[in-house]
């Protein structure tokens, strides 16, 4: 064995990496546990990406995910079948249509932008708030009445319990009622179903969160403002909301560590942006 010189700090550092040297603690994660996440389909891509990265650092933590609309998130937490309820609004407070979930803590995870979207064949590029209210309430039923072709409007709505629906109703329609039936009315159960329906149904209009917008559909301007991250950040586009991970009380253990990971600067400024969400810090005032 070489004779090492104690006074050289770098040597001590090197020695500590050598065989047989005891160390204070292992940096490889010893975190264990199982995390069940259910709720918002809008937040699901984000959840799965964060889970994939988190598990590489914490291989003994098992994460199971599912999605069936925001309201099922805090419901699953209250029922005790999920540790995290992903929801597109703060479910610890009352919102139109839903009472608060007592005892649950809303942990913010991302900013989601919502867009009114139409089938590619629709000629209209921009709608006013009033026009949107009239279309989604069933008062206006033909595209020609809002500057488009003479064709009946097919309204595609998310089912009751959808966080995207709650946010769109609150922010794009300023709380006005949504139609719930009719010949040219459809209801879908997830963001994925909305995407498919809008892409394949001529003259349709619906709403979806920005990551799901594709070049096979038209993202409408609202009051002449396009649904972009830039317009959210400059304050001109108002149809956005914060996504939350609801927990029963303050999160603990693996659940706490996972939420901290998704809230970390590394994730917020990295993978989160790649998936077209906006970091929480960007909209904090």
């Amino acid at each position: 064995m070489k004779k090492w010189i104690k006074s050289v700090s770098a040597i001590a550092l090197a020695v500590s990496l050598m065989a047989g040297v005891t160390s204070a603690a292992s940096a490889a994660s010893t975190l264990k546990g199982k995390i069940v996440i259910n709720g918002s389909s809008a937040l699901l891509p984000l959840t799965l990406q964060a889970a994939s990265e988190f598990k590489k650092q914490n291989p003994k933590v098992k994460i199971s995910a599912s999605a069936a609309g925001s309201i099922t998130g805090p419901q699953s937490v209250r029922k005790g079948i999920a540790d995290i309820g992903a929801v597109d609004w703060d479910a610890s407070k009352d919102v139109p249509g839903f009472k608060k979930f007592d005892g649950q803590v809303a942990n913010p995870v991302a900013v989601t932008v919502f867009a009114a979207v139409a089938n590619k064949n629709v000629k209209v590029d921009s709608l006013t708030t009033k026009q949107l209210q009239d279309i989604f309430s069933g008062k206006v039923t033909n595209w020609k009445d809002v500057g488009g072709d003479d064709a009946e409007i097919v309204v595609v709505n998310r089912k009751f319990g959808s966080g995207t629906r709650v946010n769109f109703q609150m922010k794009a329609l300023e709380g006005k009622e949504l139609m719930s039936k009719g010949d040219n009315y459809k209801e879908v159960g997830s963001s994925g179903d909305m995407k498919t329906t809008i892409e394949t149904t001529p003259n349709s209009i619906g709403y979806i969160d920005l990551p799901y917008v594709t070049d096979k559909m038209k993202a409408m301007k609202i009051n002449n403002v396009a649904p972009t991250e830039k317009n959210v950040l400059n304050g001109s586009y108002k149809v956005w909301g914060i996504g939350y991970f609801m927990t029963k009380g303050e999160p603990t253990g693996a659940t706490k560590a996972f939420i901290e990971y998704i809230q970390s600067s590394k994730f917020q400024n990295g993978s989160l942006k790649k998936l077209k969400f906006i970091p929480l810090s960007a909209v904090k005032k």
Partner: protein
Amino acid sequence: MKRALAVSVVAAVVGTSAAGAASAATPAKSAASALQVQEATFAVNGTAVPFRVVRSNGETLVSIRDLGTAVGAQISVHNGVTTVELNGHKVEVKLNAKQLVADGTTVSLAQAVRSVNGASYIALRPLVAGLGGTVAVYGGQINVSTVKLLEGAENPRFAGPSSLIVSVTGDDGRTDYLVDAKSGKYEQLLHSTNASDLVVAPNGAKAAYTDSDGAVYVLDLATKVSSKISSDNNIKPELVWSADSSSIFFLQGDKGSVIAKLDPASGTITKLLDDKVDYKANLSVSPDGTKFIYTVTTLGKVTSDATNVDEDNVSIDFSANQQQIFSFDSTVAEGKPVQLTTSTDDKLFVASDDGVKAYYVSVPSEDQPAKALVVGQDQKTSTVYGDSDVIETVLAGGKLYVLASVNDANNGIYEIDLASGSKKQLYTVSAEVSSIAASGSQVAIVKNDQLFVNDGGVWKPITK
């Protein structure tokens, strides 16, 4: 000969502390005439440099000019005062004085500055310290470092055998740096508020990334210039370079449903697999760009009725929730993906170098050790490394590098040759080592968020 001398002077050069050391030195008087100039080799910022040295009263003194030249300092002499300046630090020395002045502060020396054959000699450590550097000994070799190491670096990836890309994340975005694996010298590559992680091409000359609109860019690591090669606005969760660094493969859409190919020269995108199966991830591509390995995550199935929210009429069936490994051969007409695994274990660090076999870390449960496995087209798995709990695997240069927990104090780093299957332990390291990077010929480790590379059997820090 040089090596022997270098070792012999280690204690003499480094072992003597400067300020406040008990001095056994005799006055300079005429002793200088008896001093003999010898040559010793020190590593200066990762490069071996010959120095003129003299031994005086058991201590080795080095040529001020040789050191200044080696570290790139400015040296000037005025009114008998030699001034050495580097990186904003200034050291002033006078011949025959038992002190130096570093940035205005006087530092005592064990031996006075000597002149031999017209050159001035001084103890190494106080001069280097005065210039803001450090002196250390690795494997008997004196190392002088005046490189300011990068702080807070994470996510190391080799870009060729001699450099690593690392990232520093702050509230104002992420900055990527190219770090020299030998010296720790670094240079900024990219600062961005909306760029995905840099994916280094196999040739180590460029890296690809996407922005928050989905556009793809290629960064030339030599010129640091980024070029937009595609404005396609689809989300691209993963980018993978072809083996010849000429094409980029990617998963497309927020659910990673499609495997597509991008030709950087033309910007043309070609869909290779669009089977409507969502949540693909961990894409690997064969060297010829025709065969693929990837994972598919199946979600839990939810049954709910929100008619009466208060009833919490919701249930989740996680029996089908699992991650499985698939392969796909795009050369087969009407070919369909083949499911290679059916087990319910967590599968991490999935990678393939041929698009046919998949290497991965299998985590059966929180209480059982993780193993490195391989699965082939026959859907049979075999253990590649299962001696102890696997923390991480990295596939590089035809080898699988395994970081595994040996005991509470130590982790082991193992190299498995994929062609022969032979396994050897490369290093035993502290259990505080949490991650590794590998190039196929070089291994870097992350310990307490600091990056080290192995140099002659010793781990040298290249970030702090």
